[in-house]
């Protein structure tokens, strides 16, 4: 699947630069750093805006480089959709998707319920704790950070945290980490909400309400049919553009499209009360 290719590809670029000395030119490393902050081919810096924000609220003045990097990454995800990070880059998604797949395979029932908005409270708590404790609160406990660091820079006990997430997702709460708790996912949901240009278009005329899409969607609340009808595309920032729904839709009512094209499509179809 394309998403796996992208997730492994990004990690491979970091790993190759760190261990095999991949260079684009003499002494210009290809992609140095990791998902927290990096520099691509000596051209431009990148940085995790959420991590940067946490450090910022601890009251430390950051250097220009990391701020520019954070803005670059922020701008990118603001255009393609914030949670594209979750589905296409984040390594923990590999773990949770595996758990989700196994869960479906073995038909494990869901014993617990947790509101999907919990993640926004975790997000707020991360920022408040950063300010109070004087260290970037989520970065110091983040399983995402542990996983990518330990893949790129050598193994430690981070796999325990991942095992915990795996079991939690498998046995306790369906899509528990990515869909309910992860503050980074919450952060990206907020970022992509209004500005994302790549979204899933919804075609009301062909949809038969079969519900196949909601069955495969890890965030089924974004496929609220009433809302889809109104807007004409998957509006919620919680959609990660993972692309599970588009191939399963038997009528082809769900399809990736650019937002301006969606608008035109809907107006032409004569059902366009946009937003």
């Amino acid at each position, binding site marked *: 699947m394309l998403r796996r290719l992208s997730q492994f590809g990004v990690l491979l670029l970091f790993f190759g*630069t*760190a261990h095999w000395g991949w260079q684009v030119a003499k002494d210009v*490393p290809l992609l*140095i*750093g*990791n998902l*927290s*902050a*990096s*520099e691509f081919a000596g051209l431009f*810096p990148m*940085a*995790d805006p959420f*991590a*940067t924000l946490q*450090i910022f609220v*601890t009251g*430390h*003045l*950051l*250097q220009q*480089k*990391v701020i520019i*990097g954070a803005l670059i990454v922020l701008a990118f995800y603001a255009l393609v959709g914030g949670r594209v990070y979750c589905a296409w880059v984040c390594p923990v998604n590999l773990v949770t998707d595996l758990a989700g797949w196994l869960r479906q395979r073995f038909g494990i029932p869901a014993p617990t319920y947790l509101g999907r908005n919990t993640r926004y*409270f975790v997000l707020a*708590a991360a920022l*408040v*704790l950063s300010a*109070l*404790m*004087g*260290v*970037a*609160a989520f*970065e*110091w*406990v983040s399983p995402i*950070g*542990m996983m990518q*660091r*330990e893949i*790129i*820079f*050598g*193994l*430690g*006990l*981070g796999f*325990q*945290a991942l095992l915990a997430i795996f079991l939690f997702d498998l046995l306790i709460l369906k899509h528990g980490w990515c869909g309910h708790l992860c503050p980074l996912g919450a952060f990206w949901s907020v970022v992509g909400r209004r500005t994302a240009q790549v979204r899933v278009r919804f075609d009301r005329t062909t949809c038969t309400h079969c519900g196949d899409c909601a069955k495969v969607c890890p965030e089924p609340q974004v496929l609220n049919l009433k809302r889809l009808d109104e807007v004409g595309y998957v509006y919620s920032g919680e959609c990660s553009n993972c692309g599970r729904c588009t191939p399963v839709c038997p009528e082809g009512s769900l399809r990736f499209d650019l937002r301006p094209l969606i608008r035109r499509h809907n107006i032409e179809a004569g059902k366009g009360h946009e937003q």
Partner: protein
Amino acid sequence: MAEANVSRRDFLVKLAQGSSLAATGAFLWAHLLRQEARAQPFALRPPGALPELDFNAMCIKCGQCVTACPYDTLKLAPAGGGIPIGTPHFTPRKVPCYLCPDIPCMNACPTGALSPKLKNINDSRMGLAVIDIENCLSWKGLRCEICHRECPLKGKAITLETHPRQLSKHAMFVPLVHSDACTGCGICERACPTQEAAIRILPHNLVQGKIGEHYRLGWTFDTEITQDFKPAAPAAPAAPAEVPKQAPGMDYLNQGL
């Protein structure tokens, strides 16, 4: 009315439940953070690192310094390793810092946790070399002095001092570390030939004392004199003595009459 009361009670109970849940989570989280930060006094940081608390706050754990280091000195701490998670550190006995003059690790740092204020690598203070004089070969009377010879700031950071050897007429040559020049690079620790290094790098705050402001070393000339030992004001010039009209000693018995 009754209904309003019930919903108010509901609201208050929900509020209490929610906030206690949030508080529990926050305490657990904060505890984890403190646990992580507790490992901090033993970490040796790359050159130019800010003081430990600021460093821990500023470091984004990206590992660019680790990749930039040409000697593979720096490592990114994994989870559960006793070093704050994800931060760069080094173990001098394995690979010391070879003090690159262009400081690539510091230049790679995007956040400024490795402060760009460091211009000369010899001004870096990663730690301080400490000698275990019970196990130092030189202190046992052997002519070892390897740490002194290997020290990149030989003669400044480590000097050799003579020291009498009991009743022998031969002196011992013992190494002495000077904190005003020692960068904490750890080349001495790497070079020390004993089974466990008898000279090793430790963070300053673990080994360095401080005498305090109130001691004045009066016999040194660079100490400021604070007590009022000012010389007395020069006396006013005495009025010119009167020239006696008579020869001295003639009429003194009658004076004052």
